[in-house]
């Protein structure tokens, strides 16, 4: 029986590194990427901390060899940097040698440019090029054109679970035989829009976030992008591809409780995890590591802990939230955590949950706080978003 859908390439950029290797080194050296914000002039800069990528737009433009007349949002720049790494890693020489699709995810899209030129667009024409960069589909189209993918290209936005659904759709398309190869992922940059949005919800931490801690203080926003290359068994065989891991389980359920808050008993999350285990055809006790959603907000961590207890009972697998390294990167979160899950499988390593001291009394879950070496066969990764969107992915060893 097939182990799932093969992953043959990955690329990532986050506040802990501009490549897969840099991210891995930061994870095992317990080096977070949480800092004061530098690239956005927000009035909140002294009372929030963020997971900011320190490379400037101008440096990205040069690195990507884009003309100065380009109209890339930062979301598109991050996306293109990471997708090129993924494609190279998968050793793809000819994009059209088989039926290839692209599924990306975003929530912020080109808002960084729209908020910057909000009024000046009407007075001066020079920045009007960014108007068509505003919609969510723009970054996807840019990277599709860069890669030469013309047909099946789409974009998903389910808030903070967006890229989990991109991975899930990609896996389903491969399984259904509709595509031979699909590049899946997502990107979101920091923006005043999201900083202020989460600020009004009063869930931004003034300090480094503390997932699953009883005294957690809220989340750090972050920016990131990552992509995976998924290929059909036939394609893998034909090209004799090295397999990094498998997408073996996936599920999407809705909490149907509140537009932004998670239900107390974690109904949607429980359903997502249960359904994903069923798709992977494994039982809960076969999960070796949970890369949790773990945003470090009061509501999420309480609700997710409840759901994990409901699914795993007394024996919760080793668990951590790597958002303590990267911050919450919104639509990109699920795919960067997918990369971390695959790295965990490849290196037989559980990455620690930083800044944890005391377990939440009601659920008493203690995450892994030091780098832990152990054999891993199956890793479960959660991603939840506004609108009750709950998605779970399961990755399995190659």
């Amino acid at each position, binding site marked *: 029986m097939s182990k799932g859908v093969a992953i043959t390439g990955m690329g990532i950029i986050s506040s802990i590194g501009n490549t897969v290797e840099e991210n891995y080194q930061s994870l095992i050296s317990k080096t977070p990427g949480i800092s004061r914000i530098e690239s956005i002039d*927000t*009035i*909140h800069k002294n009372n929030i901390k963020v997971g900011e990528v320190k490379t400037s737009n101008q440096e990205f433009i040069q690195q990507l060899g884009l003309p100065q007349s380009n109209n890339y949002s930062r979301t598109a720049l991050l996306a293109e940097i990471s997708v090129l790494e993924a494609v190279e890693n998968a050793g793809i020489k000819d994009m059209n040698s088989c039926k290839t699709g692209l599924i990306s995810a*975003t*929530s912020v899209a080109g*808002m960084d440019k*729209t*908020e910057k030129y*909000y009024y000046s*667009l*009407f007075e001066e024409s020079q920045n*009007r090029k960014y*108007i*068509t960069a*505003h*919609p*969510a*589909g*723009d970054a*996807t*189209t840019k990277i*599709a*054109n860069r890669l030469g993918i*013309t*047909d*099946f*290209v*789409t*974009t*998903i*936005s*389910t*808030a903070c679970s967006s890229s989990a659904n991109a991975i899930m*759709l990609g896996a*389903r398309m491969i399984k*259904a035989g*509709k595509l031979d190869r699909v590049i899946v992922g997502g990107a979101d940059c920091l923006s*005043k*829009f999201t900083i*202020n*949005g989460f600020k*009004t*919800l009063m869930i931004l931490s003034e300090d480094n976030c503390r997932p699953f801690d009883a005294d957690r203080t809220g989340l750090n926003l972050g920016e990131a992008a990552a992509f995976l290359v998924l290929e059909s068994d036939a394609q893998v065989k034909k090209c004799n591809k090295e397999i990094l891991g498998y997408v073996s389980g996936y599920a*999407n*359920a*809705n*909490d*149907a*409780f*509140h*537009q*932004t808050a998670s239900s107390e008993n974690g*109904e*949607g999350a429980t*359903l997502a995890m249960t359904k994903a285990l069923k798709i992977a055809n494994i039982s809960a006790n076969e999960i070796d590591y949970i890369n949790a959603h773990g945003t470090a907000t009061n509501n999420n961590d309480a609700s997710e802990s409840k759901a994990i207890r409901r699914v795993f009972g007394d024996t919760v697998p080793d668990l951590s939230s790597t958002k303590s390294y990267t911050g919450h990167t919104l639509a990109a979160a699920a795919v960067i955590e997918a990369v971390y899950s695959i790295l965990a499988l490849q290196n037989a390593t559980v990455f620690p949950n930083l800044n944890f001291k005391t377990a939440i009394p009601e659920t008493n879950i203690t995450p892994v706080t030091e780098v832990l070496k152990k054999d891993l066969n199956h890793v479960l990764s959660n991603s939840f*978003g*506004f*609108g*009750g*969107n709950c998605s779970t992915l399961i990755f399995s060893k190659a």
Partner: protein
Amino acid sequence: MKDCYINGIGCVSAQDSTVDSAIENYRVLTDRITHARKPNYRDYIKPAMIRRMSTGVKMGVVAASIAMKEAELENPDAIISGTGLGCSIDSDKFLKKIVDNNEQFLTPTAFIQSTHNTVGAQVALGLRCNAYNITYVHNALSFESAMLDAQLMISEGASNILFGGVDELGDYTTSLFDLIDHVKKGEVIENGILNSNTKGAIFSEGAQFFVLADNISDNSYAKFIDVAIYNVLPQNSIEEKLVQFLSVNNFEISDIDVVILGTNGDVNFDGIYSDLQESVFKSTQQICYKHLSGEYNTASGFGFWTACNILKNQLIPKNLMLNEIKNVPVKNILIYNQYRSENHSFTLLSSC
């Protein structure tokens, strides 16, 4: 692929489409920007909720409830939405406050409702539906992406899927597209857009939702055959892709009785349609609808809704016709849409 059917349809648009599906009575839009006709929201949504919901959410909830009522469906196996621009009104509102008040005095409501998946979330909340829920946001392929996922869901064993598209007019966002001439300038001629010979489209908004089911019912509108999306296509390969799409489904051009085109009166891009009208579709009955619906990223949902009505009623409204050819009975309909030469899609439907 498993057989699947459209068992319920709902449409909110610039026309009175929630109360009257006699498309023949619809007026040709003559304004540059036309808002949707407000249905009687109280018939569908709790009064306390009406005030809080933005236009897009209300339109989406209404279209979804009409479609579900027609299909006699209470709880779908999935809720799949498409929206090119998402919840522009709340997004515009929150953004304006950030800029005007220098990030101060903000309240969360507009932000909470600004995410692209708000419509799908509110439909789920209203139904207390825990099922698969997803939102596609790929410009003019958003609706077709939702349809494609719905079809995939049925092939994976689901029975009833609620899917649809919705886009609303946000003042600021629309003003941006006006600035770069995506919206037609000046007075639109009396007869509407079809012979306007000017650049840009007339903008509008709407929501179209459908129930895709694995079983045929007394109320089935159409048999859903297939959909394909192409993000970018050189103009000279459209016909080749079309023939390929049809042949995968064991169809030939001559099997198509009616083609529904996304013609929107933009002189810079309607040539893509007219080239096909004069060549591959020369002997096919041709119709269009955007002079009645206006343009929005998910306007092809209005075209799909039109196709469902035609297949069920076997009646082609005169105000849609682009040529003299009449093919009755109408067995197979092809919908072809593109926007500004990107986001091409083919959708194939048959009568039940």
